[in-house]
């Protein structure tokens, strides 16, 4: 188990992640995950209590599906994001909650993500929940859950980007 790092390390990591997503550098974004990682988005208004084993989510990717999500989003035939939307991800309220017994460092942040396409803009907001580990001296995501602090996707319609 590696010791906790200075909080600036975690903040830099999250800002870097947001920058990669803003720039549609999704393969590099996938590189921030540890092999076998998972990525989940429960339905709007649900939080870390929701369980993708028995609740319907929007996204509950294992490593296999996450790799395919990235591959799909990079294709011209991924119609929902082609032409690509513009986006901006704001990260704030970063909290380093400490380490689990298995060595995962728990970090949460608040986010606002803007998606703009065809002269229309949607926003998504909520909290990211991370379980981070160190691989070869670098921070890597073992698990990420994005909880939407919204009551539905009526205003956004879809969640075709990585928020």
């Amino acid at each position, binding site marked *: 188990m590696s010791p906790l790092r200075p909080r600036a390390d975690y903040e830099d990591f999250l800002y870097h992640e947001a920058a990669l997503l803003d720039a549609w550098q999704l393969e590099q974004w996938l590189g921030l995950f540890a092999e076998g990682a998972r990525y989940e*988005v*429960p*339905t*709007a208004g*649900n939080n870390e209590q*929701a369980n*993708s*084993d*028995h*609740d*319907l*989510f*929007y*996204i*509950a990717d*294992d490593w*296999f*599906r996450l790799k*395919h*999500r990235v591959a*799909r989003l990079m*294709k011209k*035939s*991924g*119609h*929902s*994001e082609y032409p690509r939307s513009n986006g901006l991800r704001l990260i704030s309220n970063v909290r380093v909650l400490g380490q689990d017994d298995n060595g995962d460092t728990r970090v949460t942040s608040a986010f606002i993500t803007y998606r703009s396409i065809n002269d229309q803009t949607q926003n998504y907001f909520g909290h990211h929940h991370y379980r981070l580990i160190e691989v070869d001296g670098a921070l890597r995501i073992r698990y990420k859950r994005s909880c939407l602090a919204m009551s*539905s*996707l*009526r*205003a*956004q*319609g*879809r*969640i*075709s980007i990585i928020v």
Partner: protein
Amino acid sequence: MTVSLSKLDLPHRFVDDDRGNGLFRVHRQAFVDPTILEKEKELIFNRCWLYLGHSSELKQPNDFLTRNVGGRELIFNRNRTGDYQVLHNVCPHRGAQVVREASGNAMAFQCFYHGWAFNNNGRFATRMQPGNYPENFGKKGCQDLVAVAKLANYRDFWFVNFDAGAISLDDYLADAKAFIDVVADHGSQGMEIIDQSQKYSIKANWKLLVENSVDGYHAHTTHSTYIEYLADAIGGSPVLPTGDGVVYAYDLQNGHAVIQGPAPWGRPVAQWIPAWGEQGKKDIDVIYNELKQRVGAARAEQIALRNRNMNIFPNLVINDIMAITVRTFFPVSPSEMDVEAWALGAKDEGAIFRKRRLDNFLEFLGPGGFATPDDVEALESVQKGYSNYQAAPWNDISKGMLKDAPAGDDEEQMRCFWREWSRRIEGETMGGAQ
């Protein structure tokens, strides 16, 4: 475009059903004109049976949920003895919504505005200070919550009708009942809605989702990325069965229709894929054998190995594909709809297969799936295209019209919808068709 229909001197009907020549066209004004939407509300949504919810969503007596159905705010609940009922969610006093939670368990409801209270049968149950109201106030039913005109269920699918003179649900569902039976028979203990729903919206006319939900023609182009994913997920190149002699379309009467055919993916009830491993194969055999014993071999094969995409007129979709989705939608305007979608599963399903079902669902379906967002993109693109309707007025829905047995990638299932739509909106006579 706010002229009323009666003032429009239309040179055409909206649905051109030319059976002699095998041509079927729909006028694009039907997707953009607010007058048409008003007609649809009056002649379709106020007259047809509309899906409300599933029995499994109210597990205990006194359970309730609130839901917007056909533009109305409703309370769907069970009383103390467990009876299912549906009430308009509006206070008889001054009109506030009496229940504002999404769901819960309550013996009584109290309006937060002035405190009027009702038992969960909707009966007025407020103790008033004497002298303010006549003595028999609240005793004649005028201060009760108003029940919806008609409520009925078929195989745990509950429907409402706002027209007291409507035909029975049984007659309305017609041949669709046989296919609802197929979905309802997956589990030996019945079916249940899995917790949490997906509420989203599409900036397109509601009828476009009707068409898209049973459209076997668009899969290879719109969903090529999903098919590429599926190839890797199941190992090998998936044959997406859509065409002649493989997938058939069935007219279920009254505007309902279904396409049915073999499945290229794993189905929790009950088609094995190699990705589920040897134990998964044994488990599927157990599920399949139970099915055969319960419903017979032919029926078991239909349930286990066939997909179904079904429209129940006007706005219920039950797609029994890699998972089962129950989906309903309602127009907010001619160019926008609100959608709510659920996952349905067998009540007695084990944890591993429930997870597989949810994985199957999310791989394809919903606002974060690998396919639905591309459907939404297509529908929104279509809606934008309709801004040209005056110069380019017609949709073509003729595919397979001259075939004896139209296939899943033909468009007969959509013509079933449009013929009923035309009958209700334009009247019985089909222009030049018969």
